């Protein structure tokens, strides 16, 4: 199993995680994915990449470096994103019942290994 797929497996094993993807931050393309049926990986990748880019610009505008972790919470679930090196971003989609703390730790650890 490739390091990318191993990272996705670990993240998707967290309770409440509906799927995870490794995407390219600059063009929003899917590098690898592990998603539940019915989730459009290309849409997730494009939207997550765009959001992370926006937030990165805001952070840089405030004199900070790019984010290490992003959590967008909706009233029916969340998008988690962990930007790594080499333009890659590990993204996860979760339901309301997800263990977000564990998902965050797994994602940070996984993206650290990919670096």
């Amino acid at each position, binding site marked *: 199993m490739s390091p990318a797929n191993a990272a996705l497996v670990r993240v998707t094993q967290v309770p409440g995680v509906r799927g995870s993807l490794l995407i390219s931050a600059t063009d929003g393309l899917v590098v690898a994915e592990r998603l539940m049926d019915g989730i459009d990986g290309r849409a997730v990748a494009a939207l997550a990449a765009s*959001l992370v880019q926006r937030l990165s610009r805001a952070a840089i505008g405030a004199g900070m470096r790019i984010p290490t972790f992003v959590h*967008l919470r909706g009233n029916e679930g969340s998008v988690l994103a962990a930007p790594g090196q080499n333009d890659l971003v590990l993204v996860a989609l979760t339901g309301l019942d997800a263990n977000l703390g564990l998902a965050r730790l797994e994602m940070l650890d996984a993206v650290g290994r990919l670096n």
Partner: protein
Amino acid sequence: MSDDIRGLTARLAEEPSSLAFLELGEALRRRGQLEAAYKVARGGLSRYPDLADAHDLLAHILGDQGDLAGAFDAWVEALRVDPMRTSALKGIGFLYFRAGDVAAAREHLQRAADIDPDDAAITQALARMSEAGRARASASPAGQGIPVVAPQEAAAEASGDNTEHGLLLVDGNGLRLSGHLRSGSLGDVGDRVAAELAGVSKEASRTTRLLGLGTWQTIAVESPEANLFLLAPTPDTVLLTIRETSLPMARLGLIAERAARDARAWLGHQE
């Protein structure tokens, strides 16, 4: 139990609606019986929610208990009832100073001095603050993170254990409504960040809607220098709260929620 406390307790028991709770609460506070003082003050406030003295008493008790955010809120309430209340201005000034926002601290103390120019304690505090501000400025290395950021209008939470913090309220067009954001190397970056935040809000709305996650509620962002928390106090505004990374994100979320409530109230007053 000392005689004065016993007497005041009896007086309050005889006449629960009397203002004796103010003296009793203060007497208990001075004796270090903070839990009892808190209960007395809370009881009094339930009868007199618009009594600035009661909010002031509660603020002092909460401050002694180490709940500086609670003390801040109580003094804000005291000022809402009585905008000329110098003790509340002094208290808030002190909390801002502890939180590292010398400019906001000085502003509140100056307002207190304008109201009561004969209060020597205020004058002395302003002088000490100027000295401390100069010392901080000379000790602070340029170009590192976000040294001091705070709102002037939206009431900020003063947790007391943070020196790096910020609050920025932005409208739907990316224009700053309130707050300041400074970066050591870049100076005031509030307008620049505000411009980006309008896009962030739209992006977040689009993302949650298209991915079936409902309406966006919050965005928590971790960066090496600070943690950021975004939420929308109203459909047309975005509030950014920044704290140092040592503050847990969940707690930052609570602080941001409180700031959003204050922002909503403030926006309501502007209409």
